[in-house]
């Protein structure tokens, strides 16, 4: 029996999001969830780290590090403190996927302002329209050997 070799990547970094992107782009389960068209910002304000993920049809097309303004110039952005991101990713790593207390929806509801934020009430709803695709994407981080910096 062979043991699966995990890709190593540090969070937060473009390399980490690229590793995630490559995993889901080769994943039939992600494809079967259906098409997903959205531009999503990632914000980790206490580390001043901002990213932008582009979802198009059946793949995550691009991941890039951007300015805070560009992270907000998206359909919606996911904003959490570094410790909250770390807790979610560690929980996914420990369980193979988010447990019931660490899904994106649950974390969003616990934050009075929500973690899924947008300047536009219509574009924010992409968080719900494609929720299972986003959940599957982050659940796939269980396949990355994540180093926290």
């Amino acid at each position: 029996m062979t043991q699966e070799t995990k890709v190593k990547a540090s969070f937060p970094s473009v390399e980490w999001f690229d590793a995630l992107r490559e995993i889901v782009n080769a994943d039939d389960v992600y494809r079967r969830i259906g098409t997903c068209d959205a531009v999503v910002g990632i914000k980790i304000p206490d580390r001043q780290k901002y990213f932008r993920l582009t979802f198009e049809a059946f793949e995550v097309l691009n991941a890039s590090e951007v300015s805070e303004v560009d992270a907000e110039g998206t359909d919606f952005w996911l904003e959490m403190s570094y410790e909250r991101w770390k807790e979610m990713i560690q929980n996914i790593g420990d369980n193979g996927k988010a447990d019931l207390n660490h899904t994106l929806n649950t974390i969003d509801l616990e934050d009075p302002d929500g973690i899924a934020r947008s300047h536009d009430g219509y574009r924010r709803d992409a968080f719900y329209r494609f929720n299972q695709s986003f959940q599957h994407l982050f659940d796939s981080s269980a396949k990355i050997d994540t180093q926290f910096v």
Partner: protein
Amino acid sequence: MLVTQMESGIRADQAERFIAQQERMRQVSSGEETPYFGWMHVPTEWGIRARRGKKGLTVGALNVGTYGDIPDEWPYQTEMPRGAHPIPGVPAMGYSIYEKAELWADNAADLYEEAIQRRWRPATDIPWDTLQPLPDEIERAMCQLCTYFSEKALLAGDVVGKWLPEMSYGYHEVKLYLSTAEFDAARHFEVFRKRALSNGGGLGMQSPGYFHRAIFDARNWTETSVALHILSNSFLMGLYQVGEYVAQSEAEALIFRLSMQDIARQIAYGVQHLKYFLLRKIDRRPEVHTYLNKAEAIMAYEDEQDTPRREALIILLGGGLSKEQVQEGVSKLDYFKRRWMRDYLTRLAAAGLPERREHLHPALKRYLVEPAVAQAV
């Protein structure tokens, strides 16, 4: 032969056309008549090659050349597809919506493709084996919610089913998308009934139904869409989010996440339709507020009257029936209602109705302050 055809339920003129056509076919096949082939010179646009994109050959991609011309007024009263050539004498179908502003949404074709791509099957996509026996009060509360969701889904299907035959064929993107919304409603009825009947529980009490009738009795599609897709579905989206939040198993969590996706598409249609309507019917803006005044008032009343649903939510959010748990459930329900109200108003603002905040029904206005922090169950 004419009598036989009429006895089978078709009208005399239809039967005559059918018989004449049969006779022509017989003459052509027996060599008695020279083929006509005039239909091959139909004056529609020819030589079209719609292009596939990353998502395959989509309905939106078919809108090329004259086939992409979507008129503000649809002049035909028959079932002729947009872009085909009309023939005289075809009976009217009795549609009542011929104006684009009365039903259009720019995202309709994309939402149709999205709904088809992201469809799911409750029978096999949900990990039903993860359901576990639950404390009696939790099972009863979840089953009461599932009863409510099933009822809402049946209503949504009936409402859309009632309006589809009113919409003329010029706007097939909307008709196609709403057909998937109707199927989504059937799926939601199915999945919540399955959840209620698969873990040792059963169905609960029906809801008072005041709001159902308000939606069903709406006299035009825009009123129906605003009440159903934006107001009612914003509330339903909030309930599905809470359902995922209090889920006791992978099965429940996935049911609610997938249902959220379906409802979000309906909200997206409603928001884009209202936006289109308001931009083209500037004088009817006060009328939209009247629709919402009526719908919000009935919804607020129903919310007060539906004790089983409210108490089921309190039990699920508090985690049980003890005094402390009930207090926690009440507090969390209040917190979530503030979020729902915020999301409802931001959707209306995105549709071009930001002033609704000032017109909100008094019973809903009390939820307009910022929510406090909630903790996971």
